[in-house]
């Protein structure tokens, strides 16, 4: 028998493309969530590959907290324009203005949790029956439990103790009216796989991922970027450092890493020798032991 193999990146790629095509085939009105981070960028490039030479047959959607790194917004708008993809932007500020969400108070205030309200409202308003996300199982212990096709009830909630069986590659997107699915095409990728793939495919990345000078301050051992809507606690002081982002999310809870890595090869080497996870700098996960599980049950990404 003639044997053929593909390497682990090609196998992960094939799996993700399969999942994305299943979404396009099984759902009437799917959407792909786009945060501007490396995972959503890779997911989008996989979608392009899945349907080439046709355009990606669904829109992208950014749930915008308003607390962004400027580079994220530039990259987002640029990507949509250059690839001719529809980019829907929904603002957390609008949910706050409508009284649907209440801003957190205090120095650790973050709009991260509020994104859930904006997301669920958008899904309902635009009648999306599936939202693809760039969540990876290796990111966090509750994510490690999630299916590729994750069913949500009419309140957008996840029931982790009672998930549907998911066998072989037979994905079941059947649902009742009002329910929807979250689908995670890059479930099986690690941070290392993502960077290797970016290198292999020469995917253009936002400058935030490479070393640059930025004003930062240290809180509870984590470096955070300063921004007009961030308050410093007594004793905290802003200073300029050479840093890069390991994850990109809302500024208020995205820790940055002191780093000199300036190329994809250097980033890969840094990831290989890192002793903390990329979410080690995410204040949103540190709120309690089951912070992510609780947020996900409510309908978070």
């Amino acid at each position, binding site marked *: 028998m003639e044997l053929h193999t593909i390497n682990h990146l090609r196998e992960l790629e094939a799996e993700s493309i399969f999942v994305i*095509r*299943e979404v396009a085939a099984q759902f009437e009105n799917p959407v792909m969530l786009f945060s501007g981070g490396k995972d959503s960028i890779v997911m989008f490039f996989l979608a392009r590959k899945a349907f080439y030479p046709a*355009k990606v047959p669904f829109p992208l959607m950014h749930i915008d907290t308003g607390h962004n790194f400027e580079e994220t917004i530039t990259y987002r708008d640029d990507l949509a324009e250059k690839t001719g993809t529809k980019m829907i932007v929904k603002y957390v500020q609008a949910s706050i203005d409508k009284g649907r969400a209440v801003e957190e108070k205090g120095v650790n205030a973050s709009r991260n949790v509020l994104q859930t309200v904006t997301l669920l409202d958008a899904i309902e308003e635009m009648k999306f029956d599936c939202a693809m996300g760039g969540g990876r199982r290796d990111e966090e212990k509750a994510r490690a439990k999630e299916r590729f096709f994750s069913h949500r009830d009419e309140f957008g909630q996840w029931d*982790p103790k009672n998930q549907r*069986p998911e066998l072989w590659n*037979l994905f079941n997107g059947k649902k009742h009216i009002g329910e929807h699915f979250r689908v995670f095409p890059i479930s099986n990728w690690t941070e290392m796989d993502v960077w290797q793939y970016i290198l292999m495919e020469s995917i253009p990345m936002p400058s935030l991922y490479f070393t640059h000078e930025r004003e930062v301050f240290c809180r509870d051992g984590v470096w955070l970027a300063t921004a007009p809507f961030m308050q410093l606690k007594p004793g905290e002081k802003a200073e300029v450092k050479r840093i890069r982002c390991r994850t990109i999310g809302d500024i208020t809870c995205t820790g940055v890493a002191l780093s000199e890595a300036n190329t994809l090869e*250097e980033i890969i080497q*840094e990831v290989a020798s*890192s002793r903390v996870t990329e979410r080690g700098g995410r204040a949103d996960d540190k709120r309690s032991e*089951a912070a992510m599980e609780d947020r996900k049950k409510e309908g978070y990404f």
Partner: protein
Amino acid sequence: MIDDKAAVLTGKEIGYLDMELLRFTTAGSVDDGKSTLIGRLLYDSKAIFEDQMEAIERASISRGGEEVNLALLTDGLRAEREQGITIDVAYRYFATPKRKFIIADTPGHIQYTRNMVTGASTANAAVILIDARNGVIEQTRRHAYIAALLQIPHVVVCVNKMDLVDFAEEVFEAIKTDFTEVARKLGNNDVHFLPISAKLGDNVVDRSLNMDWYTGPTFIGLMETLPVGGDHNFTDPRFPVQYVIRPQSDQFHDYRGYAGRVAGGIFRVGQAVVALPGGQKTTIEGIDFGEENLQLAFAPQSVTLRLAHEIDISRGSMIVDAVNQPVQSQEIDLMVCWLNSKPLQLRGKYLLKHTSNEMKCVVTEVAYKVNINTLEELHEDTSIGLNEIAKISVKTTRPIFFDPYRRNRETGSLILIDEATNNVVGAGMIL
């Protein structure tokens, strides 16, 4: 942080770019130490990050533990930590310079067998744990049976908790003899045995100092060398069509491509193929992969096929070799593993999903139920409840195109969905 710029290597030189992927699943009874083994594996191979370690240290202490409970690395749900058991599959990842591993840590509790089956269905290898004090018990047999039924290509039996039996060789040998007998009856593929202590780390990543009588590989050593190349079918060309790509743009005005994932065999440009149903003959004009054009495609690649003739093909069609074709039938015999508390209904109607195809079916016969302990076929008892396994027949509203599961896991598997709840209730392996 990188201080020494000159030392920076390229991705290839670092050695991460060309690795094989091995998916394995854990199995075995409650408390046999599955989650502990995975935790130990990650810990000893330095795949646990400092913040993860701190988090499980905190969680172990807050639960009154005196030492760090490595099982908490995979038991991530609140309910799992409260009860000290695994409820649903957790996926973990790690890599050695040779291989990247995708680990599905599954529950041992009988109530959650459906989650075990979920984790096992895509595995190249099943790691079955046995508590050295208890030996082969009912749940070991059940999981060995499921591994055989799912045709998992490799089985690794870890006789665990050797520290609690004084690391005695006789205990290991006795269990090995027992399981070999079970595996022979069940027809498990390629079985390996290891004596380990997941808790202390003996023979997981580091060789045991307590069992010099054991000269075989460590767990990690074995997992790095299990052959995976032959786990796909490269003989019978099968391409279930997932999605039709029609750009309708000026540049690609007449482009029509069939997107899908190769489910078996090898497809080449110029190959004579037929499209099912219908059976129209044509040849492969091109194999597209993004902007690249390939000369051949094989499982598990996701590609787009272009054909020489315009024929009626849509999702659910299957492009296959002109000569080597799958079975086409509306009457199918299969082994089913029942996954729902509502029992299987004879004459009941279900939605059936097979490759990219979907249709209704009716259960026409329950031939027998399997007694997992004795492997007896119970022809009189045909009530099939949660976690039970049976041989059944179904009739579909349209023909499906399949190969026996033992020949091809992709074209031989199907699921049954209850139309009232939309839940997956049965996992089927076509005979």
